[in-house]
């Protein structure tokens, strides 16, 4: 999952980026409204965390511009301006959730995860798809037979993406996009290796290879 974090306070960005990456997200950062709006229109992000008090372009304006362009990117608004009328105005502008500063990282992570689930038509709580239960807090998966596996960072990122897109053909480059941020070296061979790790732990039949196209996560095993 690749997130866009638009926030101008460098210390807060450092902490949030670290916490978000620890939670298995690839994070790109924009420090002002104009850059943030541009990146948000790239169409590669699962969600944007948007501060409202941004230099150069106000966050609310960024949000309105996205919505005017029919950009349905899920947006979590992060702001010190948390009076009710500001919340109403924020939601009217097209926000999906609203988190007032100051906040704890746990709360932000919970909201992000809930918002991503919602965006993929999944109920809140733990991610349960095809008999697998993914514990996002502890990066652990449980199978229908009750076996639990600890996942490495990359395994977790891959599996979460598969679980959120069951039955869809996912190319290696899409997977790479959602695993690495701008600053990382992208290596699609690594993805092959880690998909094989997942197959070994959870069963080969769940991850089908479509030659030249990518992978499909099978919700129902024939």
């Amino acid at each position, binding site marked *: 999952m690749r997130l866009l974090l638009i926030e101008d*306070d460098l210390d807060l960005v450092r902490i949030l980026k670290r916490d978000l990456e620890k939670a298995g997200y690839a994070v790109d950062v924009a420090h002002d409204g104009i850059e943030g709006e541009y990146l948000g229109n790239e169409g590669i992000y699962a969600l944007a965390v948007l501060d409202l008090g941004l230099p150069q372009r106000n966050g609310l304006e960024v949000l309105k511009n996205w919505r005017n362009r029919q950009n349905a990117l899920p947006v979590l608004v992060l702001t*010190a301006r948390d*009076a*009710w009328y500001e919340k*109403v105005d924020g*939601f009217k502008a097209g926000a999906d959730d609203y988190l*007032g500063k*100051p*906040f704890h990282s746990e709360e932000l992570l919970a909201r992000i995860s809930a918002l991503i689930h919602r965006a993929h038509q999944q109920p809140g709580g733990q991610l349960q798809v095809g008999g697998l239960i993914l514990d996002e807090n502890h990066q652990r998966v449980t199978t229908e037979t009750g076996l639990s596996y600890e996942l490495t960072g990359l395994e977790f990122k891959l599996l979460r993406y598969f679980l959120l897109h069951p039955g869809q053909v996912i190319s290696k480059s899409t997977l790479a996009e959602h695993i690495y941020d701008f600053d990382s070296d992208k290596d699609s061979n690594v993805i092959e290796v880690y998909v094989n790790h997942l197959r070994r732990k959870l069963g080969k039949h769940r991850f089908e290879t479509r030659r030249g196209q990518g992978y499909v996560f099978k919700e129902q095993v024939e």
Partner: protein
Amino acid sequence: MKSLQLRLGIGLLISLVSVFMALWWLTSSSIRYLAEEYVASHLAHDAESIIEAAHFEDNNTLELKDDQIEPVYLQPFSGQYYQVISGGHVLRSPSLVDQRLTIPALSPGETRRLYSTGPQQQALIIMAYGYQRQNRTITVAVAEDLSPLLTLISAFQQRYALIALALLLTLITVQALILHSGFHPLKRIQQQIRDLEKGDRSQLDTEVPLEVSTLVAEVNWLLNVLEQRLQRSRNALGDLAHALKTPLTVLQQLAREDALQAHVDICRTLETQTSNMQRIMARVLKRARMAGSGPALAKFDIAQEMPALINVLHTMYRDKQLTIDFASPVTGTVLIDREDMLELTGNLLDNACKWARSRVNLSIAINHKVCLRVEDDGPGVPDADIAHLLQRGTRLDENVSGHGLGLSIAKLIAEQYGGHLKLGRSKTLGGFSAEAILSKTEPL
């Protein structure tokens, strides 16, 4: 406070009445003076012809040639009399019959005008002249009854008074009308100021008479300043909040840094102090943000704003699958600042959604006062604890944050609008019920 219009009216009335009375007096006395002068000159002629007719006989007796005397002096009590005196001799007109006039002896060339009551109570004017004839001093007095003239004059005075009175009344009416229309622009300003208080307008019309245009301009300027100042102080507080909250978030996160985990005391202090700061800031900022009731109030459109707010709460509590019912008998506007109304309703709804199992009711009733009730089907609060709820910062359940703060802010807002917050148990849903009653708002 005296009405300017009344004062002007009374002043004008007094001056009008004085002018009319002075005119009446002047005219009446002039008429009388002219009439008397006319009579006097006529009497002077008669005196001339009487002295011409007078002569002394050889035996020193005074005689008048009757043929030179006008016949009116011969009829008894005709109203015209003469009396000629020289030494011991007195000649009286036959019209006097047996009466006599009291005349002083005058030296030659002397003239005197006298008023006295003559025969049959006639008001006489007497002209007396002193002459020298044949080395003797003669005083000729001629008198005429003024009564017919006085009757005429008093009839004239009455007519004149009646006409003057009618004119006076007409003028007073005209002036009252002029005053009324002259003060009309002021009445309009008065009405506009009342509208201003009700929030129907934000500025006064500038098309007013020159005399009050400075005042109106000043009021408009003050209204602008007030509005700007409110806006500026709100913006300043918002900026302050933004400026402080981001560093506060960073500080809060610091306590969770791995490097600090070995120092439990430091972490705990950092956490306690940052959450203290957070609480204080939230309280102060929210209180300062409230506009309160005042002249330049905007209207709050219930039908437009409330569904948007409910939508926000639906989104925030999406996972709870809440049903939020909204009942408002009016699709009108209330005179409450939008930010205050949203803050009040938002806090009450947030609290209800936090505790509700599946249903929340929001209802607004308006009759002179605005009554806003929020109920939920949650566990509610025991009566004994309700009093504690409103003590700011008190939270019965520390895990669900903001419970006490939200309610105490709602209470502050309600009090700003001259109302109060009533807490209790919901009769329909069985859970908590909060009712805000705002009285300084007129439905329009």
